[in-house]
Every structure is written in structure tokens, then in C-alpha cells.
């Protein structure tokens, strides 16, 4: 087995290379080749999964080392992969969901002039994502981390002829870069403190190494900054809504199911490093993002932007869970979220496809349930799952987190999480009702999408519907499976009784759905007029509380002014000035001294004579 697990990342890499060089010649087979490599990787991952669960529970991990990459004194970095229950879960999500989205893309991207290149990038993304989750040390993980950032950039800007797309790509890259840089500083600090970056070295000694808690907190928070950038949490979330300029399968794969969850993976993987203070930071930022995303989503007219804010909100829930110490719950939500959110993104892609390709404005949709019954039906399942109503998967993944929050005794956090749950149900129902219910408001002729797109969505719908089974059984199948990596889920403590908590969650979610139905679904409220009456509120939500505008108008000019000062003031003035000044000084001195050079040899001879005489005189005096 250890040798074959190398094939999991290498197959998509091979696919990427083939498609990069021969994509044009392969024509439409490029897509099938790309899908096949990811599908095979999924099959091998499944094989690895069965090999893994046959191992005894302690020591349940597969490792394989290729070679020593960096050796410097006592510091080693190896190209080594580690498959433990945590990375196994991520592997199955990345390859499984990735495979379905690749298949879907065959239909969605049909006829695109850069068809082959699209699949080359997608395969490359899968490769880097697999490197990220399979790495056995932070250095290799960072390689994957930056690699997925690159692929995200390439794919957001895939239709780079559109100015908005190329700008969004740059924005995504630069904003995540801020987090990445902080994370790199954290890694450097880690080398300094622990002398190693291998998971096995750092995470096992984290508690007993004698590194002070303050230092640990700094390292953990710096790592979390990387996660904030990658997972679009406050305050580095601004790139995610704009990233929706990319093709929709990209949004589904990278900006819903896999890359943005890398931050959650990082936090869960490194949880041994997180001190109570750092955990609080994670929980607070997660909860704030959950609430913020849910509210901002209500104000969006663009179906993909609404879903993007929803992703941010759901990721916030995952960080919230991780911050409370419920790591396995965070990963469980990650898995089912990958199902239902990529399902809904693919659904929105199907809608766009049905409306001719690029229509994302929900104001000119409506009633598509009848015109696109399959897409509509599956979107209902996705929305149902996200709203947190049983029996769909979202309920079984999100409700335990909220209950757990209640048990930890942070009442305010619990109330805010409930509030976010209300708005989650509200925004997702709003999207559903505006798009699929009521009467069609547009002037196009919607048609159902081809089977190649519907079948992957069907599989994801099954996952979204029954994914909850993963968290059922005695103490949660997936939680139990993750225990070797995340530690057992310790009891949260005494809170409200479980049935009451479940009842509250269901009532809140139902209230959200009902409110959305009343406003956008029933037809009894003129929501356009309602919006006009509350225009300031709507504008605030639509602009995501003006965070982006604040950055553009306050932060960016300040930074630009600072950079200009450094560039023209310090660099051109001081640094260049010193160098040029030295040059000028030499030139002027030379100009003065050149008059001594008469060109008459006898003058020189006289100077030599005088010099020798003076020297002799001095020597004589000195003696």
C-alpha cells in the first residue's frame, strides 16, 4: 500500500501535465482524461481507507517517505506523506467531490476555447490540494498551500478577457497572501522554538516542550492568520465574493468544498499548538464570520455571491467548533458542507447554463423549478441541508456544534450561533425561493442541463441528504473515526437538555425558512418595494457592511501613501541619494585633483624629488 498511495497525488499531476501540453489536441477527451485521473485517485484513496481501518486504532496511520528534501544541521524536511484518519477524510472529500465536479465540468465547459487548459488547472489544483492534506510536515503542506492559491488565481481569472475576472484573481491572490505571510512567520517561529516542522515532532511535544504559553499563542495565532486568509474569514474575507468571477465548477470545487476548508484542516491538524487564548481567537473570529456571512448573504442579488457569503458563514461555523475544541465536529461539518455547498454551486451553474451561460442575477430568475425540475429538486435538497432542518445532513452536522457551544457555557456565543443559524435558513431559503419558486421574471428560455451535469449533482445530492448518517451511530461514526487525529470529543459540560436544544434549533431554522417564504416565496409581500423602503439596510447588506469599501477607501490609500513615501522618500531620496552623492563627491574631487596632472614629466620628477627629500627629512627627524 505505501507505494501506491503516491499515485493519489501523482495521477492528477500527470493529468495536468498531459492536458497542459496536449490539451488542444485531445479536444473533448481532455475533460474525460482529467476526470479519470481524479476518479482513479479517489479509488486508490478508498483502497487506502480500507487499509487504514484494518489497522488497530492506536497507530492508525500510513506513511511513505520519498527522500530527504532539506537537511541543515539537526533540521530535516522530508518529502513524506502521512495518512491518518484526518487526512484520510480530507482525501476522500477532495478526490470524491473533485471527481464529481470534474465530470460536471465536461458539460459546463463544453465549447470553451480553453477547454484543455481548464482541466489542466483543475487537475493541478487537485494535485496541490492533495499535497496539502497528505503532507507530513508544515513545509510540504505550505507547498500545497501556496499551490492551491496559485491554482485559485489561475482559475478565478480563467476568463481573463473579462476585466472583473482578472481583477478578482489578483485580489484573491494578494489578500490571501497577507495571511500566508503571517503564517510563514509562524512557521519560522516554530522552527526557532521546536527545531522541526514535522507534524510528528512538533505536535507531540507541543504540550511538554517548555515553550512558554505566550509563544505558543503567538505561533498558533500566526498559523490561524494563514487560515483566515485561505478560508475567507473576517477580516480577510473580501476576496471570496469577488472570486465568483471564475467558472462555476471552480467556485464549487475550490471556493466551497476544498481549498477554503484548508484553513479548517490546518487548525484541526495543529490543534495541539492552540492555547486557550488562541482557541478563543479562533472561536470568536469563526462566530463573527458565521454571522457576518449569513447577514451579508441576505443582501445579495447575485446567486453566486450569495452562495459565497454562505460559504464564508459555514466556514465560520467550522472555526467556531474548532475554537471550542470540538475538532471532530468541525471536520464533520466540513465533509457534509462539501456535499451540499458544491451541490448548490453546481445547481447555480446549471441555472446559468440553462439561462444561456452568464446570468447570475436572481432578480430575473424565479419559477425555474418547473422549467428545470431536476436542478430545482436537487437544489431544494442542498438548501434543506444547509438550513439545518432534519432529516438532511446539515442538521446532524451543524446542530451538534450549536449544542456543544451551549454546553461550554458561553451563553452569548451560543445565542449568536443561533442567530447565525436563523439567518442561514433565511438566506438559503431566499436564494431557493427567488430562483426556483414564484413566476419566471426573465426573458430567456431556460432549459434543463445535460445528464453529464445532472448525474454528478445527483450523487452530491445523495451525500447532502444522507451525509448525516456519518455523524449518527453511538458517538458519531466520523467523530469516532477521527479520534486518533483529533482526540476524543470531551464532554462540553452541563447545558440545556439535548431535546430542548434540538427543538430550539429546529424552531429557529423553521422560523428562518418561514420568514423567507413570507417575503420572497409567498408572493404576498412585494419584496422589491420592501427593499426600496429599507434601502440603507439593504445597501449595507449588499455591500457586506462596507468592509470592502472601507479597505478600498481607507486602508489601500494609506498603504499606497506609505509605499509611495518609502519608494520616493526613502528609496529614491535616502538610499539612491547616498549612492549618487558618493558618486558625485568622487567626481568633484577628481575634477579638482586633475589639475595636478600637468602631463609634463619633469613636474612629476620634481614632485618625486621633493617627496623623497621630505621622506628623508622626516626619517631623520624621527630618529
Amino acid at each position: 500500500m505505501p507505494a501506491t498511495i503516491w499515485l493519489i497525488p501523482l495521477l492528477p499531476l500527470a493529468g495536468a501535465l498531459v492536458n497542459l501540453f496536449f490539451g488542444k489536441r485531445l479536444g473533448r477527451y481532455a475533460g474525460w482524461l482529467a476526470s479519470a485521473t481524479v476518479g482513479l485517485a479517489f479509488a486508490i484513496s478508498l483502497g487506502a481507507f480500507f487499509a487504514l481501518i484494518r489497522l488497530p486504532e492506536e497507530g492508525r496511520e500510513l506513511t511513505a517517505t520519498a527522500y530527504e528534501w532539506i537537511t541543515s544541521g539537526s533540521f530535516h524536511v522530508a518529502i513524506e506523506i502521512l495518512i491518518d484518519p484526518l487526512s484520510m477524510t480530507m482525501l476522500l472529500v477532495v478526490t470524491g467531490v473533485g471527481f464529481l465536479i470534474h465530470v460536471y465540468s465536461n458539460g459546463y465547459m463544453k465549447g470553451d476555447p480553453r477547454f484543455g487548459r481548464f482541466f489542466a488547472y483543475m487537475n493541478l489544483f487537485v494535485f496541490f490540494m492533495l499535497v496539502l492534506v497528505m503532507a507530513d510536515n508544515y513545509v510540504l503542506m505550505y507547498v500545497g498551500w501556496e499551490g492551491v492559491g496559485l491554482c485559485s488565481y489561475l482559475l478565478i481569472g480563467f476568463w481573463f478577457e473579462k476585466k472583473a475576472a482578472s481583477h478578482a484573481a489578483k485580489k484573491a491572490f494578494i489578500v490571501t497572501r497577507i495571511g500566508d505571510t503571517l503564517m510563514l512567520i509562524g512557521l519560522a517561529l516554530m522552527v526557532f522554538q521546536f527545531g522541526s516542522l514535522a507534524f510528528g515532532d512538533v505536535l507531540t511535544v507541543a504540550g511538554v516542550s517548555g515553550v512558554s504559553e505566550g509563544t505558543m499563542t503567538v505561533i498558533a495565532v500566526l498559523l490561524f492568520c494563514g487560515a483566515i486568509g485561505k478560508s475567507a474569514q473576517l477580516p480577510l474575507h473580501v476576496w471570496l465574493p469577488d472570486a465568483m468571477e471564475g467558472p462555476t465548477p471552480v467556485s464549487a470545487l475550490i471556493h466551497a468544498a476544498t481549498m477554503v476548508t484548508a484553513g479548517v484542516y490546518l487548525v484541526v491538524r495543529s490543534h495541539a499548538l492552540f492555547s486557550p487564548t488562541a482557541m478563543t481567537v479562533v472561536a470568536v473570529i469563526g462566530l463573527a464570520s458565521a454571522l457576518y456571512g449569513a447577514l451579508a448573504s441576505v443582501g445579495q442579488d447575485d446567486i453566486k455571491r450569495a452562495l459565497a457569503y454562505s460559504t464564508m458563514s459555514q466556514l465560520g461555523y467550522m472555526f467556531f467548533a474548532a475554537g471550542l475544541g470540538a475538532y471532530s465536529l468541525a471536520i464533520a461539518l466540513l465533509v457534509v458542507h462539501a456535499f451540499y455547498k458544491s451541490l448548490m454551486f453546481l445547481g447555480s451553474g446549471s441555472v446559468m447554463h440553462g439561462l444561456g451561460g452568464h446570468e447570475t442575477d436572481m432578480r430575473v430568475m424565479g419559477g425555474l423549478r418547473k422549467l428545470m425540475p431536476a436542478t430545482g429538486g436537487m437544489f431544494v435538497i442542498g438548501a434543506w441541508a444547509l438550513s439545518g432542518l432534519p432529516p438532511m445532513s446539515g442538521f446532524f452536522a451543524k446542530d451538534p456544534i450549536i449544542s456543544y457551544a451551549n454546553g461550554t457555557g458561553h451563553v452569548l456565543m451560543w445565542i449568536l450561533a443561533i442567530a447565525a443559524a436563523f439567518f442561514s435558513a433565511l438566506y438559503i431559503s431566499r436564494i431557493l425561493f427567488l430562483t426556483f419558486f414564484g413566476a419566471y421574471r426573465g426573458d430567456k428560455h431556460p432549459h434543463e442541463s445535460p445528464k453529464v451535469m445532472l448525474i454528478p449533482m445527483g450523487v452530491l445530492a445523495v451525500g447532502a441528504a444522507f451525509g448525516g448518517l456519518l455523524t449518527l451511530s453511538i458517538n458519531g461514526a466520523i467523530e469516532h473515526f477521527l479520534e486518533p487525529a483529533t482526540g476524543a470529543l470531551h464532554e462540553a459540560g452541563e447545558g440545556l437538555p439535548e431535546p430542548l436544544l434540538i427543538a430550539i434549533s429546529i424552531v429557529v431554522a423553521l422560523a428562518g425558512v418561514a420568514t423567507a417564504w413570507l417575503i420572497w416565496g409567498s408572493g404576498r409581500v412585494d419584496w422589491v418595494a420592501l427593499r426600496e423602503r429599507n434601502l440603507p439596510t439593504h445597501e449595507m447588506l449588499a455591500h457586506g457592511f462596507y468592509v470592502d469599501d472601507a479597505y478600498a477607501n481607507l486602508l489601500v490609500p494609506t498603504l499606497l501613501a506609505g509605499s509611495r513615501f518609502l519608494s520616493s522618500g526613502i528609496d529614491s531620496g535616502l538610499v539612491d541619494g547616498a549612492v549618487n552623492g558618493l558618486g558625485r563627491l568622487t567626481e568633484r574631487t577628481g575634477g579638482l585633483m586633475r589639475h595636478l596632472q600637468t602631463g609634463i614629466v619633469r613636474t612629476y620628477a620634481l614632485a618625486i624629488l621633493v617627496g623623497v627629500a621630505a621622506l628623508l627629512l622626516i626619517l631623520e627627524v624621527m630618529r
Partner: protein
Amino acid sequence: MTTPIGYYLVLSGILFSIGTVGVLVRRNALVIFMSIELQLNAVNLSLIAFSRQLGDLQGQVLAFFSMVVAAAEVVVGLAIIVAIFRRRRTANVDESNLLKG
């Protein structure tokens, strides 16, 4: 009865000074050249005087070397002077000031 070394050295110093002044004040390249020869031979004289005084042949050997080198130098120097003269129609060294700063 030997002549004391002081006389030789004084003569050598006088010759050397004449040579130096010649180099510094004359403009004709040939005369400068002769002055240089004068300086060289002044030094040769002092070398030989010391050699005799110390009873050591090395000084005399060095004087021979110096004469050989001087002869060689005269060949090259005269050749240069002739070349300059052909080109500029003058042996006045002050007019050859192309290296002026």
C-alpha cells in the same frame, strides 16, 4: 695611502645633483637623457667606492649590472625620442603633454 671614502661620496653627490637639476630644468629630451646617465653613473661611483671600502665585490658587480641596464635603456629611450621627433618635429619634452589632466 688610500683616498678616504668621503671624497668619493661627495663627488658622487655633486654629480647626482647636477644630473637631477639637469633633468628638472632642461627641456631638450637628449640633454635630459644625458642628465639621467649622469645620475646613474653617480650612483655607480658610490657603489664602487663602498665596495672598495668594505672589501666586498658585490658592489662592483652591481655597478656592472647597472651599466648594462643603462645601455639597454639608452637604446629604448633614444628610439622613443627619435620616434617622437619624427612625429612632432621637436625634442622639447614640454610639448609632449597629451597626458595632461
